[in-house]
């Protein structure tokens, strides 16, 4: 049985380098995602999705599977409490392609999800919100409230 995947495509008036940075620089992610995405983004390294309230608590954690700046990033994704259970580790792929002269097509594919899981429901609601906020941040420098 193939596990379900979630795919979301958005077009952003920006550059691949700016989109890459907006996904991987904690000083940018904190503006539109309410979290700092912390890693050195090299294959095999850990990444953490840390709260910005000073606690540095990670709400999501994983490892870097592929990293080809500014085009292609694959990471694993799990709740810290479930990260040791391979069944509960999902995978997120970001594909960043130039589009026309001044835009980027960003495709986010989240797969290896457990059917009917809380994580599947959560990311299905969450990605449109986060990626809408990312687009607004890059195009207007205004963050949308999550």
């Amino acid at each position, binding site marked *: 049985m193939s596990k379900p995947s979630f795919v*979301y*495509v*958005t*077009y*952003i*008036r920006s550059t691949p380098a700016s989109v890459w940075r907006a996904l991987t620089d904690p000083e940018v992610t904190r503006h539109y995602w309410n979290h700092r995405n912390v890693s050195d983004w090299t294959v095999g390294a850990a990444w953490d999705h840390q709260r910005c309230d000073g606690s540095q608590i990670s709400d999501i954690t994983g490892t870097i599977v592929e990293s080809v700046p500014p085009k292609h990033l694959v990471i694993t994704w799990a709740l810290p409490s479930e990260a040791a259970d391979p069944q509960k580790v999902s995978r997120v792929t970001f594909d960043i392609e130039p*589009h*026309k*002269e*001044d*835009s980027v*097509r960003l495709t986010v594919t989240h797969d290896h999800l457990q059917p009917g899981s809380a994580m599947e429901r959560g990311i299905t609601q969450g990605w*449109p*919100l986060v990626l*809408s*906020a990312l*687009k*607004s941040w890059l*195009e*207007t420098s*205004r963050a*949308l*409230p999550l």
Partner: protein
Amino acid sequence: MNDKPKFVYVVYIASTPEKVWQALTDADMTEQYWFGFRVSAGGKVGSPFTAKSPGGKDFDKGVVLESDPPRRLSYSWHPQYDDVRHERPSRVTFDLAPFKDQVRLTIVHDDFDHGSKVFASISRGWPAVLSSLKSFLETGRALEPSWSDEDRKRVADAEARA
């Protein structure tokens, strides 16, 4: 697998439901972000939905199925270009809900038969149109069209019709 093809997309826009509604139904608005297409869908239930190509030719036609401004809009969708005209009409439904100074816009495009070519086409098209809509409402500038070669041919064919 018995699930029929269904496209679902959600986008959050820093705007009001009234403005998003107008942008979805008023041809003078759609022309600015829907890559030159004039889309009219603002009438009562039973009135026509039309999408005209930049050259003024019928591209998609249908009928307004539900209209509850500025919350819910549904219309049937029947492409008029030659290679898919034989497919029966599908259905587009928009739901607009206020969300923290934004609008959560949900589009569901369903009621396709298995193997629909229209389904493949709209699955590429809606993210581009709705990304452009968001940019247009938030920044005043729409995005460039994102036609595939197939789309481009369909528009050219529609424009070439008498």
